[in-house]
Every structure is written in structure tokens, then in C-alpha cells.
């Protein structure tokens, strides 16, 4: 209830600022929020809703794929120093490369549809999840591991009861930080090589000077980010109760 109120207040403040700026600047490129929301309402059940759906699918699929690949690898590297010594230089070399530069490679391979966008997001999130998971798995207190092993845990049980719950909060935090980047990169990828998605919708509106449409697209993008953060927040509170006592 309190959170709902705070979220509402934040949205109201943002809209007020927007309205003020629109009135003061009086530019065609900055229509007041009312105009943008009118278009948003009009298009939401039409093209805009579809583009939002496409982008949401791409981000969620990218997150899922990144989690499914980075978490097991992070576990292995975190718990096996020898494997980590082999893999670490490679990871540190590839990690800082802006993954967007791979777009020209991904598009000929996977086409301009969903697959290239999903994989791009996966690539970005993969490293952002891999490192905290690896470090988290490595620094699980030895006493916890020892006492659970002494209770009769095999390797699988150790991962399930100790390592995974220990790295989960860090993974969710990493995911939250990284999904902002992921949405930004998705936008960029959709503007240069797509016929679908919010990036395409916004850029299309921008290039035809349809500013209210552009802002409707931006509102949709904000919604997408808000949705992802809300889900991650909810997951963290639900799965990591013990952190918030």
C-alpha cells in the first residue's frame, strides 16, 4: 500500500515536471504529457502494444538465457579454482568489449528477427551475472560448507542448500543493474536493424517527426523497465526473505 503510494507520487512528480517543461519550452519536440498519453492510449491496443510485447519478450528471453548459462558456469568457476584460473583471463578480456559491436556479426548469422536481439541481450547480461555468481560461490563461508557436508550433503545438495541461496541475492542485484543496460542496448539494436520492437517504433516516430508517437513509445519503454524492476524486486523479497528481517 505504502509502496503503491510512493510509486504514484513519483509518477505524478515526473509528469508535473514534464508538463512544466513542455509549457515553458513550448517546442514541437516536447509535447505535453497529455498529448503523449492520448496517443499511448490510442495505439496501445494497436501497433504500440505489439511492439511493447515484442521488446518485453526479447528482454525476458535474454534474461532467462543469461541466467540459465551464467549461473551454472559461475558455480563451476567459483568452486573450482583451477577452472577459474583458465577461464578468468578470457572472461576479463571479453567482458569490457561493448557487445553491441557484435551486432553486425549476429545479424548475418541470426537474421534481423528476435534471435539476434535476444542473443545480444544474453551476451550483455551473461558477464554481468557470471562475475557476481562466481565470486559469491567462491566466498561462501567455509564453515557453512563444512557443516552442511558433515550433515551428509553431496555436491548437488551443497549447491541446492548452500551455494545457490548464498549467491541468489547478488545475482538478483546484478540482474537489476544489468537490465537497465540491456534495455538501452535493445533499443539501439532495434533502431538499426528491426521492423519490430519499441526501438523501431520510437525511431520510426522520430524520423517522421511524429513526436507524440515518439513519447508514447518512450512511455512504453519506461513501463517495460518498471515492469522488470518490479518483478525483480518482488522476486528478491520473496526468495531472499532472510535478507530483509
Amino acid at each position: 500500500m505504502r509502496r503503491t503510494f510512493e510509486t504514484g507520487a513519483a509518477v505524478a512528480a515526473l509528469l508535473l515536471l514534464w508538463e512544466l517543461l513542455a509549457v515553458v519550452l513550448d517546442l514541437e519536440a516536447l509535447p505535453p504529457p497529455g498529448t503523449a498519453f492520448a496517443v499511448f492510449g490510442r495505439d496501445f491496443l494497436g501497433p504500440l502494444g505489439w511492439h511493447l510485447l515484442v521488446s518485453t519478450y526479447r528482454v525476458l528471453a535474454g534474461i532467462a538465457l543469461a541466467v540459465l548459462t551464467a549461473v551454472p558456469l559461475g558455480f563451476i568457476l567459483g568452486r573450482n579454482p583451477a577452472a577459474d584460473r583458465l577461464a578468468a583471463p578470457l572472461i576479463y578480456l571479453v567482458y569490457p568489449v561493448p557487445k553491441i559491436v557484435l551486432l553486425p556479426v549476429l545479424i548475418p548469422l541470426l537474421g534481423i528477427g528476435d534471435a539476434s536481439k535476444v542473443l545480444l541481450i544474453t551476451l550483455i547480461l551473461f558477464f554481468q551475472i557470471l562475475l557476481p555468481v562466481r565470486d559469491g560461490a567462491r566466498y561462501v563461508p567455509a564453515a557453512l560448507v563444512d557443516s552442511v557436508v558433515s550433515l551428509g550433503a553431496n555436491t548437488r545438495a551443497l549447491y541446492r542448500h548452500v551455494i545457490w541461496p548464498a549467491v541468489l541475492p547478488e545475482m538478483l542485484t546484478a540482474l537489476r543493474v544489468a537490465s537497465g543496460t540491456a534495455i538501452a542496448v535493445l533499443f539501439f539494436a532495434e533502431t538499426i536493424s528491426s521492423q519490430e520492437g519499441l526501438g523501431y517504433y520510437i525511431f520510426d516516430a522520430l524520423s517522421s517527426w511524429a513526436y507524440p508517437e515518439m513519447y508514447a513509445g518512450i512511455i512504453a519503454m519506461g513501463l517495460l523497465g518498471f515492469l522488470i524492476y518490479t518483478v525483480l524486486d518482488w522476486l528478491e523479497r520473496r526468495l531472499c526473505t532472510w535478507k530483509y528481517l
Partner: protein
Amino acid sequence: MIAVEDLRVTFYTPAATVAALGGVSFRVARGDTCAVIGPSGCGKSTLLYVLAGLLRNFQGRVVVAGEAVKPGRRRTALILQDYGLLPWKNVFANAGLGLELRGVPRAEREARVTRILRELGLYELRRLFPGQLSGGQRQRVAIARALALDPDLLLMDEPFSSLDALTREALQDNLLEIWHRTGCTIVLVTHSIEEAAFLGRQVVVLSPRPGRVVATHLNPGAGKSSWRQEPEFHCVCSFLRQQLAGGVADAPDL
């Protein structure tokens, strides 16, 4: 129950070779209690790790219940210094973890954990997480988790050293009750002279690293809660203090 003969443990790190235990021998009869006491870093914890089967890289002979020590012995329970409770599981789940790992069916597990939590006065706390408990409560949960496994050998590392005096004595009395009721063998490692003299019917005094046995003291008075008030208890304490000081060559005034 336990026979340790000439146990030596050496840790090899890239930086140094550290001898933790330099030939330790002692025996503990089934159903008896033994306290191992020594200065910090004398390898007491290492000794427990060996007895628990967690540390296999040792020389010498270690027999537990008639067999060479090996990992995964089902009736050995280990309680580590910081109790080893999982912060993300509540009291009930923590106490039932050992049973869960051993594949005990849920209904039986819940019945056993409920009974043990009630016995230890923890049932009201069952939904709390370790972070919400006091040190004494956490230690009791760790004991509950160990007892749920119906152990015949209970290994404890500094069980009560971080607790305040009153809680410590209450829990020591608690442990004695458990010992009387279950008849399990208890080996505990401590740096507290009073704790060793109160709980150990046999007290093994170790020297500084590499730990060797300075003295093995039979202490038959231990095992009843009135022992703490008896004059002999204090005699044992000062005897142990002397033995410890004798083992610490560079600190004769300990």
C-alpha cells in the same frame, strides 16, 4: 568409541608448510565426554575436522566406533564454532536439514524436528531465521540439528565460548542433560579452562602448534550440574591452568 594414535596433520600452502598437529594420541570410551583444551592455533579444530571425517589428509591412526574414520559417518554430528546455520533457512528448516539431506520422509522429519525443538524450548522460534536469534538460541538450534540425526558421537568446536556467562552455564547444563538422556559420546574443543573442567570427564591438554598432548586428565566429577560449585572443580581448573602454562614455553605467566 574413539582411538587416536600419533595423529599428525601438516598443511601445505604455497607460502609455507604448517604442522598443525604433531603427534596426538588419546582414547574416548563410548558414552563418555572428552574436552580438548589448548591455546589458540594449537590445532584443536583440525583435530575435530579429522574426527568428523572432513579432513582426510592426515598421518596416524584414527578409529571411530571400531572403524577407520571416514567421511559421511551417519551418526557423527559436528557443531562448528559459528554453529554453521544457514541464514536463509528458518529454525525449523535448519534443524531438519540433516534429516532432509539423508532423505528422511517429510512426515517423519517434521515429527522428529518438532519433538526436538520442543525439548530444547525452540518450538516457538521455529519460523525465525538465524539472524533474528541470540547467540545462545543459535547454538541451541545447532544442537537441535545435530540431535535430530540421533548421533552417537557429538563433536563440538568452541561450543559456548562466544556466549555471556549465564547463557553459557545454562547451555552447558543443557548439554549435560542431553548427554545423560541420549548417552552419546561427546568430544568438545575449547580454550576455556572452566568449560573443559565442567564438561570433560576426560580433559586432553594440547601444547601450542604443532599440537601435542601435554597431559590427559581424568575428571570423573564432571557430568553433573552441581560440579561447578564443588571445591574439586576449582582444583581441576587450577591444575589445567598449570598444565596449559607448562605447555606454553614462551608465556609462563598464562
